[in-house]
């Protein structure tokens, strides 16, 4: 069982990337907006960028230590690095790309299902095939740590789902510490065991996808994880509940305690839709026309005013929901999370 630890500061243009992360035999996704420093972290682990401070170790052996003056060169670190857009050698065949790290690796070609492409050049491959070649090449290095930079970004939407599942299976089988960089929360949730959200060079929250969706520590995480995010001003009422006046003038009640500017987070599946305001237990009712109805599997994502609700296809059918119709979206105060805005 391998493990990798890093605790580093890497100066980049305009700010410092400061990351402390322990990765066991698991896949940790670094998720965040572009420019947050995700790739910088991978490059530092690979030895391509030198941190100004800190240490990086793999299986207990030091790769970098600013105090001990240890700094292994990239070629001395056992990393398997799948670069963004794969960076396959265009002048070498698939076979030669994979054997670049040394030794013929027929087993890897077989394992990744690219044995039939051994003689092909990268330019002749599809996105999905290129990704598998890049993985095989990285694994041929016999890495202690696997680094994957946006491995799904270059794929078209309908191969993406299949590739996600394949990658997840492969990473599970390998049991290597792996750091996956992506800007797509869904990719991260599908492939990784844990997710670390990186914003402006800092990890703002770490947890499972479920953790992040259920308890986002910041409006950014909430938005990333796919909940509704509304902004407003909070004050605690005499009855102990918190009342939030949204920027739109709408009033929302929450059981969370907060005051001042807040982000209101409601998950789409916590919102129910009805034709008329009913005497239910929900504290919050938003009356607005339906802006859009988008099918997602057996569910429908219904946009009502500022909110996105998720209802089953059956319910949407039963209610005869149509775009443009005025409906009431209801959600309980207990399902309304408040996150203070800095």
């Amino acid at each position, binding site marked *: 069982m391998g493990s990798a630890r890093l605790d580093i500061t890497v100066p980049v243009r305009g700010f410092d990337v400061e990351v402390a992360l322990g990765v066991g035999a698991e896949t940790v996704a670094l998720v965040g907006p572009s420019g947050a420093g995700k790739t910088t972290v991978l490059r530092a682990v690979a*030895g*391509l960028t030198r941190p100004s401070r800190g240490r990086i170790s793999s299986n207990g052996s030091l790769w970098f230590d600013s105090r001990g003056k240890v700094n292994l060169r*990239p070629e001395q670190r056992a990393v*398997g690095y799948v*670069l*963004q857009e794969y*960076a396959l050698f265009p002048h070498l065949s698939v076979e030669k790309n994979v054997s670049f790290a*040394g030794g013929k690796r027929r087993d890897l070609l077989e394992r990744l299902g690219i044995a039939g492409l051994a003689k092909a050049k990268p330019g002749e491959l599809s996105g999905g095939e290129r990704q598998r070649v890049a993985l095989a*090449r*990285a694994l041929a290095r016999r890495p202690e740590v696997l680094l994957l930079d946006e491995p799904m970004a270059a794929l078209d939407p309908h191969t993406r789902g299949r590739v996600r599942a394949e990658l997840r299976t492969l990473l599970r089988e390998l049991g290597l510490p792996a750091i996956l960089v992506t800007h797509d929360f869904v990719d991260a949730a599908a492939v990784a065991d844990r997710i670390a959200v990186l914003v402006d060079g800092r990890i703002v929250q770490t947890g499972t996808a479920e953790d992040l969706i259920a308890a986002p520590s910041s409006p950014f995480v909430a938005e990333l994880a796919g909940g509704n995010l509304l902004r407003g001003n909070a004050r605690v009422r005499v009855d102990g509940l918190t009342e939030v006046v949204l920027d739109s003038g709408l009033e929302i009640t929450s059981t969370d305690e907060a005051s001042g500017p807040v982000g209101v987070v409601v998950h789409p599946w916590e919102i129910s839709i009805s034709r008329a305001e009913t005497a239910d237990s929900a504290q919050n009712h938003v009356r607005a026309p339906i802006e859009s109805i988008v099918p997602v599997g057996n569910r429908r994502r219904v946009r009502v005013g500022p909110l996105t609700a998720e209802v089953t296809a059956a319910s949407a059918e039963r209610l005869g929901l149509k775009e443009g119709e005025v409906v009431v979206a209801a959600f309980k105060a207990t399902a309304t999370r408040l996150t203070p805005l800095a």
Partner: protein
Amino acid sequence: MSRIAFAAMTAVAAGVAFAFLLLPLVAIFLRVPLGDLLDQFGNQVFRDALVVSLKTSLIAHVAVLLFGTPTAYLIARKRFFGRGALITLIELPLVLPPAVAGIALLAAFGRLGLLGDELDALGISIGFTQTAVILAVAFVESPFYVRGAIASFESVDPDLIAAARTLGAGPWRVFGRVALPLAAGGLGAASALALARGLGEFGATIIFAGSLQGVTQTLPLAIYAQLEQDFDVALAISALFVLVGAAILVSLKVFAWARHGSISPFRFAASTSR
């Protein structure tokens, strides 16, 4: 009306330009029948000049490749203080009159030059020898090669270099298996261009090496020497240059077209001051 006038104007301008460029070249071949031209290649002056030219250009070119390639790789890969100044220095001979290059070489390596005493003490005399021709040719052609080579190495995706390093490749392997093969097309084009420039070297050579038949008289110098004595020899050598030059250009374009589907192999990238 104005559209037609414009079209006519550009057509006339292009016609004049092409005629002006083509007429002298055609004249070389029209003035003397091809058979007589070929006979001139038996001439001793021509044979001596050919041997001197081939020998000196070849040695100079190999030296330029051997020293220029690592230099270009270093400049393309590293960012350091004074990089822009260094590139400008490399480019300087491009804009200098070759005669100035000749004077500069004399001032450095000539008997009365900067290193004259040191070279004298070692029993080495460079001025007006074949070594002088080689130095002059190398001095004048090297910026053509190094500039093109820098651009070629810069066009290699840094991610490919990074990938090679993470796959365990040390600097020699990165250079030999990734950078060099990927830059090869551009290096070849730069090399051919530099070779052509070296073969045509005149000004620096005549000043630094003189024009001694069989020793320092290269083909361009022979043209000049034969101008008064035997114009047909001068013509024959000139015709040879036109043919060799055309062959180099055509092969470069065909090569570039086969590789990239583009017709221009001359990629002098923005390598000036970054």
